[in-house]
């Protein structure tokens, strides 16, 4: 037999099941988001780190021009600070896929290599492959459009292609996914490389170190030792010890988690407000209980248990969808990053965090109204007679009393201001939900628009890359002669390294994929018609700027954000040059780049040499044009690496960010839901509280229709206020999120962009939501008979 007080709580919850459902839903919806992101963040960050570490990536890679023979390698292993070492070779070439050239990275590994550093896991086939075969990275299959048993047409140094069979696939999570880099990754032996026409030379010395905090100095010491022994160390690469996308993944998931947590706090506030309303209606009952001996502690426990039970139900509801969404996100991001989720288990703090936030946060926030209700004295509780309260005493009430106009609207406005705390809470809920909703949509739009805009600044339709610099004149002429090509410009881009002004070459941060962390020095006509640069500070290049550079945001950041007018050091081939920074530009996509005029490149590379063509074309078949240009350029004796149509570059940039935009939109919808639930709950409390008053109104002649209109008007006004506040608050929030996401993905804040669709959607949502939410309450109010409303005191 249960105790009367338990019975009371259970029946009260049942009697208020509509509002209880709203509370449960609000917590469940928000907690689903929190749970999903907790799961996703915990698993992805752990697994990405584990996957990267499982390859035992080299701490540093030294390019030794003349190669490293076994004897030298043995000697290197005994050098101080070196834990292990091996030799490799990486060849950048191209591969013909469906008649189109693509960049192809060949990782050359000696069959004798113990594969202790820069490991990869063979997924199908076996290592080493045959002398006329290679293994490809598993995520490169979409780029190479080939699987085991297929043949790849790989270009040799002289431009001729050789067929090589795909013997199987490997899994190499140390590389940024092939699809995002628009590049094929192959693994083969020196013998197989020689068959393609290249000279095998183990010119990469990969080392791991005993003290990971001293990677740079250990690598420099080793380079000095090698130099002293007559070798030429061309450059040192030491990327950060983490997956190329780890930092972004960490930061973005943290941001999203914060978003979801904000939704949960909103839901908790909603619970507190709803409970506050329910408890206010129970004031006299609390007084009655206290007169028959209930202590504050007993009442506190009763109501807290009820709240906890509600929260537990919500938590139970959220766990399933939360885990499902979380693991869904894990798999999506896993595929995106090309990492295997080897361990799907959750660290202990995830379930603890889910339960703690699902039960703890609502209970904690609800403690405020519950404490207030439980502490009330019998005297105060039983004193609370009548329908008036303190209305009529405040200045705004007197001011409102003087207002003239539609009677119902006026009454609704006055009613609204009666419970200012509640109005404030409802508006806060709606506004916070709406602000996050519009900010989410704004950010998604801004992100997209920014990428679009950045891409629009590239007026060229395709960029063709050559294996090495050639004389500009013939290739430009050849390309220009192709029907459909409307204009052509040549550029010269060389791999460079930031150096200090004294000329000391910095250790490069380039990953083995050659893209992430790379830095280029590009010679470009100052009057280029191919790119409209977005100059952020200083100015763009001018003819005669022989020592000037303009840096894009990544280059500026790599060089320590130098002031306009200051000098920086940029090394090419180990030789540092001094340059004066005259401006900075914003660029979407592409590596860290320092731009200068072609003439300024002559100390580095002979005059009039170029290694890339940017061109515009018209016509309906872009593939036909790019193919013809490749053929025409090849006809001059130059070797084409690949053609990157601008649309494809766009896809590559999108591929990095699109999933996060979607998650943001989903989170925004979550917020909107919680905000609308808040309105629904507030309106139903209002109606219940005024039950008597509606009865009195009906007794003196108000029709159910008037009552309904009164409640609806009140809801609509609340909705509109909430909407306006939401839009106002959403703007700074959008800027904040834009800054964060932009800095993470492009190194630049994404400028604010208002999504008119988002605002419209929110307005519509709130208006229909407000009507929907209030309609039930309004119907209820209108249906109450006078007897019902007046009998209970």
């Amino acid at each position, binding site marked *: 037999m249960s105790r009367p007080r338990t019975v009371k709580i259970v029946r009260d919850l049942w009697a208020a099941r509509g509002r209880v459902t709203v509370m449960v839903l609000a917590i469940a919806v928000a907690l689903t988001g929190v749970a999903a992101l907790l799961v996703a963040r915990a698993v992805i960050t752990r697994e990405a780190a584990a996957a990267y570490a499982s390859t035992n990536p080299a701490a540093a890679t030294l390019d030794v021009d003349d190669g490293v023979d076994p004897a030298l390698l043995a000697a290197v292993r005994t050098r101080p600070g070196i834990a292990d070492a091996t030799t490799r070779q990486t060849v950048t070439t191209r591969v013909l896929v469906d008649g189109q050239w693509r960049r192809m990275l060949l990782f050359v590994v000696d069959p004798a290599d113990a594969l202790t550093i820069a490991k990869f896991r063979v997924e199908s086939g076996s290592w080493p492959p045959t002398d006329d075969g290679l293994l490809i990275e598993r995520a490169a299959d979409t780029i190479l459009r080939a699987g085991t048993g297929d043949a790849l047409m790989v270009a040799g140094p002289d431009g001729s292609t050789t067929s090589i069979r795909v013997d199987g696939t490997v899994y190499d999570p140390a590389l940024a996914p092939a699809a995002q880099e628009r590049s094929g990754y192959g693994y083969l032996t020196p013998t197989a490389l020689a068959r393609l026409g290249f000279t095998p030379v183990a010119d990469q010395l990969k080392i791991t170190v005993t003290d990971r905090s001293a990677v740079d100095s250990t690598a420099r010491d080793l380079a000095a030792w090698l130099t002293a022994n007559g070798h030429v160390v061309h450059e040192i690469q030491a990327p950060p010890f983490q997956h190329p996308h780890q930092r972004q993944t960490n930061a973005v998931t943290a941001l999203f988690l914060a978003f979801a947590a904000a939704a949960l706090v909103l839901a908790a506030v909603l619970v507190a407000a709803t409970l506050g309303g329910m408890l206010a209606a129970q004031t006299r*009952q609390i007084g009655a*209980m206290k007169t028959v001996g209930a202590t504050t502690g007993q009442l506190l426990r009763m109501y807290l248990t009820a709240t906890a039970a509600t929260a537990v139900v919500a938590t139970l509801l959220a766990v399933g969808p939360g885990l499902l969404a979380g693991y869904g996100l894990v798999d999506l991001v896993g595929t995106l990053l090309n990492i295997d989720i080897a361990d799907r288990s959750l660290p202990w703090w995830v379930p603890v965090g889910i339960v703690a936030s699902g039960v703890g946060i609502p209970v904690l926030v609800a403690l405020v109204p519950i404490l207030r209700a439980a502490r009330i004295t019998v*005297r105060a509780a039983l004193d609370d007679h009548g329908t008036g309260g303190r209305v009529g005493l405040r200045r705004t009430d007197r001011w409102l009393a003087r207002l003239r106009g539609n009677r119902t609207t006026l009454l609704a406005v006055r009613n609204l201001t009666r419970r200012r705390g509640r109005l404030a809470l409802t508006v806060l809920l709606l506004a916070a939900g709406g602000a996050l909703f519009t900010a989410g949509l704004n950010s998604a739009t801004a992100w997209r628009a920014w990428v679009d805009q950045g891409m629009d600044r590239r007026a060229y339709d395709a960029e063709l890359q050559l294996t090495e610099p050639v004389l500009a004149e013939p290739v430009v002429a050849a390309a220009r002669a192709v029907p459909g090509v409307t204009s052509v410009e040549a550029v010269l881009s060389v791999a460079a390294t930031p150096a200090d002004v004294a000329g000391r070459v910095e250790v490069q941060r380039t990953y083995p994929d050659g893209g992430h962390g790379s830095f280029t020095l590009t010679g470009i006509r100052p009057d280029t018609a191919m790119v409209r640069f977005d100059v952020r500070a200083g100015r763009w290049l001018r003819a005669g700027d022989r020592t000037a550079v303009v840096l894009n945001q990544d280059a500026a950041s790599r060089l320590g954000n130098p002031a306009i007018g200051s000098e920086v050091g940029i090394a090419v081939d180990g030789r540092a040059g001094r340059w004066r920074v005259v401006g900075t530009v914003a660029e979407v996509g592409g590596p860290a780049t320092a731009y200068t005029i072609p003439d300024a490149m002559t100390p580095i590379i002979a005059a009039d040499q170029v290694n890339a063509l940017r061109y515009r074309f018209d016509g309906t078949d872009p593939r036909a044009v790019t193919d013809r240009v490749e053929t025409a350029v090849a006809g001059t004796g130059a070797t084409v690496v690949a053609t990157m149509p601008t649309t494809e570059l766009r896809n590559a940039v999108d591929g990095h960010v699109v999933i996060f935009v979607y998650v943001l939109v989903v989170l925004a919808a979550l917020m909107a839901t919680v905000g609308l639930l808040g309105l629904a709950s507030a309106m139903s409390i209002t109606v219940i509280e005024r039950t008597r008053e509606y009865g009195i109104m009906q007794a003196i002649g108000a029709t159910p229709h008037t009552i309904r209109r009164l409640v609806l008007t009140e809801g609509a006004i609340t909705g509109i206020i909430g909407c306006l506040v939401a839009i106002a608050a959403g703007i700074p929030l959008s800027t904040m999120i834009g800054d964060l996401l932009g800095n993470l993905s492009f190194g630049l804040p994404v400028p604010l962009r208002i999504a008119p669709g988002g605002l419209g959607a929110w307005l519509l949502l709130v208006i229909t939501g407000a009507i929907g939410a209030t309609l039930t309450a309004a119907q209820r109010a209108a249906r109450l008979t006078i007897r019902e409303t007046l009998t209970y005191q």
Partner: protein
Amino acid sequence: MNIASNNEAVLAVRSATKVYATAGGDFPALREVDLRVAPGEFVTIVGRSGSGKTTLLNLLAGIDRPTSGEVWVGGTGVHALPERRLAAWRGRTVGLVFQFFQLLPTLTVAENVMLPMDFCDTVPARQRRSTAMHLLDQVGIAEQAEKLPAALSGGQQQRAAIARALANDPPVILADEPTGNLDSTTAAAVLDLFTGLARAGKAVVMVTHERDLSGYADRQVTLADGRIDTDLAVPA
């Protein structure tokens, strides 16, 4: 039974004054009131509206504290009892009956009666229902036990409220206009109940507007402007 002597009193008010701070300055609702009630006495408090009847009753129930003076109930100085101990003390010591019955709407009549036993843990859980049924039988509404209060008439609700006030067998019963909402026949029945309780040894104090209380109360205290005007034995 006439005015009780000091040592017999279960209720004793000594020189109690209650001053309310209002916008128009301090307002003394009770001034230097002295009152003693012995077990088995049925005292009614009468007086014009605003004379301080409810204020006095609230002091006795520990719902309010005197501005000065003392309130002793069954040997406990209620005026000095800390707030956190008041509720439990009240649940065991005084049974309160109001004009608006203050039954909990979501509990059945029987459950309402069991509630004080639950909060004060006075009756073993297993005996609570039978105790409640016994009390409901005593006030004559045993057959209504399983109904919700809203389904009862005003008189029935008030009987249920009296049964609830008796749940923990308190030595003192305090009632504020318990018949204010009832017709005269029903009111008479309720007054009979109070007389019975007094006969059974409880101290009963009731604020009322009823004029003719001969045959019910032992004593009638009249308040005027916060002072005891008359304190007379009611002729039987």
